[in-house]
């Protein structure tokens, strides 16, 4: 069947993981030196979107709450950053945590009503919020600059680094993205992640096991929004400009497409999802302006029919053919059990029969 087997929890497995991460790190650092400025700015966008997509995946993929409005948090983060830079003289980097905090608070606030809304109704409310966002920005033009938008000074690299502007923006985004990915992959494997997954798969059972639904749901919302907000503030750096047109419903839909394509309830999937939503429009716009939408739509539907695990699911099954991971549950670390639970959740979801729809 598979080419070789790896003992679970063995040094071999750890070595393989480290090797994989090293390759990824080398590629990530090499990118800005291998491509021209235009391409590098696209990879910067990939990193930025990946943060927002990861946040959305924590909410949708892990905790099972559907949000179609994450473009709104992304927008809130971007405008928080832009307004701070425009009105005050705070250093660029401080706007990133500021945007994260503002969105965390907004996410908690939206998480509260979300406690009473499940499934499709939550989707409806968040969709309405996403639609209302550009309208509200235009209305509060005193603060937001209306449809004119706000231009800001992009962060400049310190001369000592010897980096070009585009390379600096890339590394700035990378430096923000890496700890956020590390943090997310940490929590989803530990008790928080397991609580979220349990809640997604069966609320009653989760509550019986002692998961406080209200706490976890609102915090998942807050955290997810904070990720989107941080991404938004980085987007402001990368763009040097914010305007309502950048935050239409399309953004929210693209994020959703990205989590599905990358793989629901995966951390690394966010990166693939972000690559998809950055490069599909770039390449398809040569053919027709509408083609990227056609591809998004068709891919979403195709994913649900054929490969529900998204790209990560495909990679996992491909890897399963190369190496088989052996071992028993006993004596395993929390990390691995957590990972297993996440995967089991995917499988259950794929095989899900008729579940209650009118939730």
């Amino acid at each position: 069947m598979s080419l070789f087997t790896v003992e679970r929890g063995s040094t071999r497995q750890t070595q393989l993981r480290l090797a994989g991460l090293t390759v990824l790190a080398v590629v990530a650092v090499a990118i800005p030196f291998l491509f021209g400025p235009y391409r590098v700015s696209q990879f910067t966008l990939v990193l930025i979107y990946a943060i927002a997509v990861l946040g959305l995946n924590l909410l949708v993929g892990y905790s099972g709450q559907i949000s179609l409005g994450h473009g709104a948090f992304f927008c809130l983060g971007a405008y928080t950053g832009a307004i701070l830079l425009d009105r005050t003289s705070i250093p660029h980097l401080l706007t990133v945590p500021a945007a994260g905090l503002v969105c965390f608070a907004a996410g908690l606030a939206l998480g509260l009503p979300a406690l009473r809304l499940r499934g499709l109704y939550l989707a409806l409310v968040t969709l309405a919020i996403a639609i209302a966002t550009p309208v509200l920005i235009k209305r509060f033009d005193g603060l937001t600059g209306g449809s004119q938008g706000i231009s800001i000074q992009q962060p400049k690299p310190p001369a000592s680094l010897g980096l070009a502007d585009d390379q600096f923006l890339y590394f700035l985004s990378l430096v923000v993205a890496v700890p956020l990915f590390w943090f997310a992959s940490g929590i989803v494997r530990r008790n928080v992640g397991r609580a979220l997954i349990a809640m997604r798969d069966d609320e009653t059972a989760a509550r019986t096991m002692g998961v406080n639904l209200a706490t976890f749901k609102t915090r998942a919302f807050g955290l997810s929004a904070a990720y989107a907000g941080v991404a938004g503030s980085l987007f402001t750096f990368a763009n040097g400009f914010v305007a309502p047109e950048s935050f239409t419903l399309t953004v929210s839909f693209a994020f959703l497409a990205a989590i599905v394509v990358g793989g629901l309830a995966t951390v690394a999937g966010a990166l693939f999802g972000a690559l998809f939503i950055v490069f599909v429009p770039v390449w398809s716009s040569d053919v027709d302006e509408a083609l990227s939408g056609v591809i998004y739509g068709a891919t979403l539907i195709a994913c649900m029919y054929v490969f529900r695990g998204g790209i990560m699911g495909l990679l996992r099954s491909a890897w399963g053919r190369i190496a088989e991971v052996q071992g028993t549950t006993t004596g395993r670390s929390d990390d691995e059990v957590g990972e297993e639970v996440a995967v089991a959740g995917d499988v259950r979801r794929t095989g899900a029969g008729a579940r209650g729809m009118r939730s």
Partner: protein
Amino acid sequence: MERFIQLVIDGIAIGSIYGALALALVLIFRSTGIVNFAQGEMAMFSTFVAWALVQAGLPLGLALLAALAASFGGGMLIERVIIRPVEGEDPLTILIVTLGLFILVNSGAGWIWGFNNRGFPRALPGGSTTVAGVRLSYESLGIVAVLLVVVGLLWLLFEKTKLGLAMRAAAANPASSRLVGISVGRTLAIGWGLAALLGALAGVLVAPQLFLDVNFMGGVLVYSFAAATLGGFDSPKGAVIGGWIIGVAETLAGDYIGFIGSDLTILVPLAIIFGVLLVRPNGLFGSPEVVRA
């Protein structure tokens, strides 16, 4: 006072359009438990078909009939090809598929007809009459009349025909319906066809006022969601009455609340969706959800 009555009547007219699209949502929700996020985009596509037929030289009446028939067929086809494979899956899966359909139809129309907005010919006569100082446009009256006729026809279909009985049975209990020889798949497809037809009707009625472009039904969909939520997602009566309430609330809020004006009317359905879901999640006429824990 005249102004108030005027606004209420305008609200009922536009609310009838929301009601028609909400009725389409309710029709699908009742039979399959799916909230079809793509309903508005399907209606947009149908409206474009009608527009293209008019451009091709067909008389307006004939073009509308052809577009409505095509919508019925298209709705059945979508149910069969796209929805059937995921029927009965968990909400997230179905939501993603209907959103995929939303994006696909939206961009598909953009690809075929471009992203410019276009004028759409009025199917209803222009002009107006004045009753007791209140101006009643024939168009508004016509829209309300069309909605009432449609509701009447649907009532006849569901209550007085064998097909309607089969559709209600298939919605209530698919397994038992199969046992008595009802083709559940066919009734579901017809349900989607009818919903697409209703949506198309809403589209061609509202297009002359909004201008036709690929995103013109997006706003209407939000209002219709609000109407269906307010009325109760499984209540046709609720959809129509909900549509009227939303329409009236929109015109009144737009006129009397200075902060909202003409730009922020989208906040009205948003607030109503929020409020209803928090206070009375089943809406005014919906039946409460029964969950076996």
